């Protein structure tokens, strides 16, 4: 029986021969790394494919690697209710072009996850219907989960509400 990794890699290479997928496995979890410009079509395929059916988007977040060339990775965790398998998709985002295409047209739940990622890392999501900050006030100028944001916060960055 083919493992999840083999199965996914076969299906993706068959469908997208021109895209370079880096598929890795750690603790029985499969992660697929590819170019960020293909994110929407790959997600659409994974959701709509008859055999895979990754219908549930569990989580979207980003990682700040601080010193690496492509500073951020945006990570998507998706789950197939049909096969009970989980998949992590990963795209690298550079600081100079800090944006990814939004997948909220594919999974509606991505809306808030992407807002949270934008709020915490400042990564903008193109074509997002309502890209506002999720937790922090709109006036807040910083992105708290970036590695260069100090743990103690920045004094005066959160103004008290008007009386």
């Amino acid at each position, binding site marked *: 029986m083919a493992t999840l990794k083999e199965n996914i890699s076969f299906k993706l290479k068959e469908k997208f021969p021109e895209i370079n997928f880096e598929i890795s496995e*750690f*603790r029985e*979890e499969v*992660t697929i790394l590819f170019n960020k410009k293909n994110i929407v079509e790959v997600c659409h395929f994974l959701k709509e494919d008859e055999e895979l059916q990754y*219908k*549930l*988007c*569990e*989580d979207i*977040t980003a*990682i*700040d690697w601080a010193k690496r060339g492509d500073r951020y990775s945006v*990570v998507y*965790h998706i789950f197939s*209710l049909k096969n*009970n398998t*989980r998949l*992590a998709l990963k795209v690298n985002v550079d600081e100079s072009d800090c944006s990814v295409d939004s997948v909220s047209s594919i*999974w*509606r*739940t991505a*809306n*808030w*996850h992407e807002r*949270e990622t934008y709020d*915490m890392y400042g990564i903008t999501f193109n074509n997002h219907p*309502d890209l*506002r*900050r*999720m*937790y*922090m*006030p*709109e006036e807040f100028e910083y992105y*708290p*989960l970036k590695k260069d*944001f100090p*743990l103690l916060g920045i004094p005066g960055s959160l103004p008290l509400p*008007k009386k």
Partner: protein
Amino acid sequence: MSKLTKDDVHPKIIKALLDADTNITVEDALENEMILNMGPQHPATHGVLRVVLRLDGETVVACVPELGYLHRGYEKMAENMSFMEFIPHTDRLDYLSPMSNNVAYALAVEKLLGIEAPPRAQYIRMMVSELARIASHLVAIGSLAMDVGALTIFLWTLREREKILDIWDILCGARFTNSYTRIGGVANDAPPEALAKVKWFIEQYEENLDECERLINTNRIFIERLDGVGVISAEDAIEIGLTGPSLRGSGVEFDLRRATPYLKYEEIDFKVITYPDGDSLARYFVRADETRESIKIVRQILDKMPQGETLLNQPKKVLPKKTEIYSRMEELIHDFMIVNFGVNPPVGEIYSAVENPKGELGFYLVSNGEGHPWKCKIRSPSFVNLQSLPQLLKGRMISDVVAIIGSLDPVMGEADK
């Protein structure tokens, strides 16, 4: 609720309200639209949820939930402390079921480390997470009933919950913020008194739940406030990312205990409760039946629980017992190393999710080989479940807002992290 001036609502929220898709037909529209602010301090929003409603007469045309009033930055704090130090903070996520959060986090770190707790510890963990599920659902049922006007139930369900808190008191010395799990096991073995109390609790629980249900299940006011209110179809529920009882109330048989078994759930016989209607009443029924199912699980756990160690014997990864630290050199050294430099998991990243009372609680841990996580992302069920609020509220009356929020059972400590 005091009158809102234009400055109180951020222009972007107003814009989101006005941009929202509002193609609903309102019979006898009053044609006097207004914007109403509900929360963040409102008894029916279960904490500090703020909902900005756009109303036409009494009908909700659009709504924008505003989160972040309880944002404490736990993800940032996790990056600055060792894996072990974060356990007490998981108590403060879903503060109605701290035990299951502890279990979820311990499982995530163990997966990253590549270790597994001894069987007895796993059974104890399963027992506490099922009891936590009962406790959390009891609060959910009680506060939902209170939101729609049946006050007695709240007192009765909290009385039952009190008994579970007493069990935790015996088990780990704390009633609310338990921090009972350790990486590689649990803090201490379940004493016989605690197990006896669990046994007593499950014997008398169902009778008491029946009593509560007799009060509300035939109560016409309660049923009519919930029946057909806040309907969401199965496809929409998956699309919007609902998990837990809210998803199963829409007829989707998805439960992580069954879908991706963790701990020893594959040895346990239980049913995944679903109701097809997808309305607030169905979500209430799912919760009530799930507590019965949890009782069944706890009964099996008590029968099957093996004897043995409750903490893994892996000196480089698991903190040794306190008595050993004080009496042996080796253990003292290991304790010093783990406390000061942390357990150093291999470079890698894992996502581990468990079925919490509210839904799927996931931890995404990224390790760069050091003693503290490079990143810790908390996928909290309440956060995602709240996203369905605009859809559920659209076209309903303003009095349904409290019923729908109550049926989703959000906990803001978790939604805001």
